[in-house]
């Protein structure tokens, strides 16, 4: 089975810093693939290299065998690679429904004149997507007025509405309360199996609940890739990286300050 997404020798330098250093990665179809590692391990940078937000210093990215290294974010998105962002990026002046509708509308073709039938189809589909993430009763609320957890849900609804084949989630649980994390886990479990998911997450509990494959990054390089059990059992991860068992939760569960750049 060929990988949905693969990258070879992928590197990204910022000045002298090797944020991502010669990473090879294969994401298998239908996988729930987690990227973990402490702060500064290069997880987000790697995700951005895959989604096209950043361009690599060297190396290549392929989506279903097609080289996409030089394609823009929007081209990659149209090829079926969608992402959520660490700080939910939403259209804050629009309602939840309008947020999702924008994602749906692109696939129906955007025209500079009104098309009533398409419009209602888009609205229906948007309503459905909101229902999927449990925001049906919040559809007319401006995204800017949603609570943090709701914004995450909406973010996922918007991303799912793109009907991606590969979904990149950047720390979906960041800043969430335990209850919200629980709901998020359920939500991710509901993502159809044909959609492959690659996600970066600090919450190890969530990672081990969801992931079928885990890759550990350390100092920009790949430390190990394997099943959750393999990673848990790995001496390299335990000793060289995670430290003792007692500390590792602290390392991974340090909450990130939730700052949304678009809301300031």
């Amino acid at each position, binding site marked *: 089975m060929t990988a949905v997404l693969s990258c070879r020798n992928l590197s990204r330098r910022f000045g002298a810093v090797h944020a991502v250093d010669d990473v090879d990665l294969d994401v298998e179809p239908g996988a729930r693939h987690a990227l973990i590692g402490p702060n500064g391990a290069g997880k987000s940078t790697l995700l951005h290299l895959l989604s096209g*937000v950043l361009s690599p210093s060297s190396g290549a990215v392929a989506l279903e065998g097609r080289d996409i290294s030089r394609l823009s974010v929007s081209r990659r998105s149209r090829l079926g690679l969608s992402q959520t962002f660490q700080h939910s990026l939403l259209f804050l002046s629009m309602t939840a429904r309008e947020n999702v509708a924008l994602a749906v509308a692109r696939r129906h073709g955007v025209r500079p004149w009104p098309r009533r039938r398409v419009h209602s189809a888009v609205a229906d589909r948007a309503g459905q997507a909101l229902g999927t993430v449990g925001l049906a009763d919040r559809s007319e609320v401006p995204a800017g007025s949603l609570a943090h957890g709701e914004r995450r849900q909406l973010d996922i609804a918007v991303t799912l509405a793109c009907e991606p084949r590969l979904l990149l989630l950047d720390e979906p649980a960041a800043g969430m309360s335990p209850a919200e994390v629980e709901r998020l886990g359920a939500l991710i479990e509901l993502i159809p199996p044909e959609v492959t998911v690659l996600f970066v997450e600090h919450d190890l509990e969530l990672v081990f609940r969801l992931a079928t494959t885990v890759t550990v990054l350390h100092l920009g390089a790949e430390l190990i890739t394997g099943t959750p059990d393999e990673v848990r059992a790995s001496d390299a991860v335990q000793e060289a990286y995670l430290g003792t068992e007692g500390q590792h939760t602290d390392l991974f569960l340090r909450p990130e300050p939730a700052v949304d750049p678009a809301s*300031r």
Partner: protein
Amino acid sequence: MPSILASNLTSLLNGLSIGFLLFTLAVGLTLVFGMMDVLNLAHGAIYLAGAYIGWYVMGADPTWTVFLAALGVAAVVGLLAGGALSLLVQPLASRPHLDQALLTLGVALILAELLSMAFGDDVRSVSPPSALAGSVDVAGGSYPIYRLFLIGVGLALAVVVYLVVERTTVGALIRATVADRDMVSAVGVDNRKVRIAVFGAGVALATVAGVFGAPVYGARPGLDWTILILALVVVVVGGLGSIKGALVGALLIGQVETFGRSLFPEFASFVLFGALALVLIARPRGLFGAPTGVKV
């Protein structure tokens, strides 16, 4: 031909003196933008106010004392006006760039009208201090001494600004604010006073530039827009908010305005904006502007 060499040398020298004058003008604009996030479109009108102060104080045949007095008056007026402008802008701090820019545009219109009421619409020319009047022979042609003086002033100002920004605590705060405004306020620095002071200093630089520029450009209605556009081009070419950019941009635009115009006389009208467009095509945020499109 030696005379062609000489005229090119004169152009180069002249570009340098115009460039340094533009620097005194632009550094205030870029400082205010970098510190306060306000694109002050009243900068040109404030420059003109400075030029009128120069004309009014200096009179027909000014001595050094009178010249220094004019600079002093201009600096004080500039500081006060800047403080006032900063208070005017304060209520709009949470609003987008455009609102503040538009407010200053309105202020510019009003100020220009007030100046025209106060000083009339005649063209006023200002003599340099008598010690600096006249010309000297440079490379076979004569060259006004005052313009050589401007090069010195600009250099001195560049050094002073560099020392203040790089070596003092205020400078450190300025650098920090330019780099990350929110971080500085998050750290708990009460930058309200600092902001008023910086706005005052930025505006005072404009009025002082007006006095320095008066013997070259005079004072007249309409000069405010010409100057504003030059200053804007300089800071945009250099990169908004960057002091190094203001220096490099000013020197570059100085050369474009003299050397460019003499090399391509038939395209003289286009060299200024042509240069701006070229720089922005190559570097959309200016030469020393923040890098683009990296963070999401």
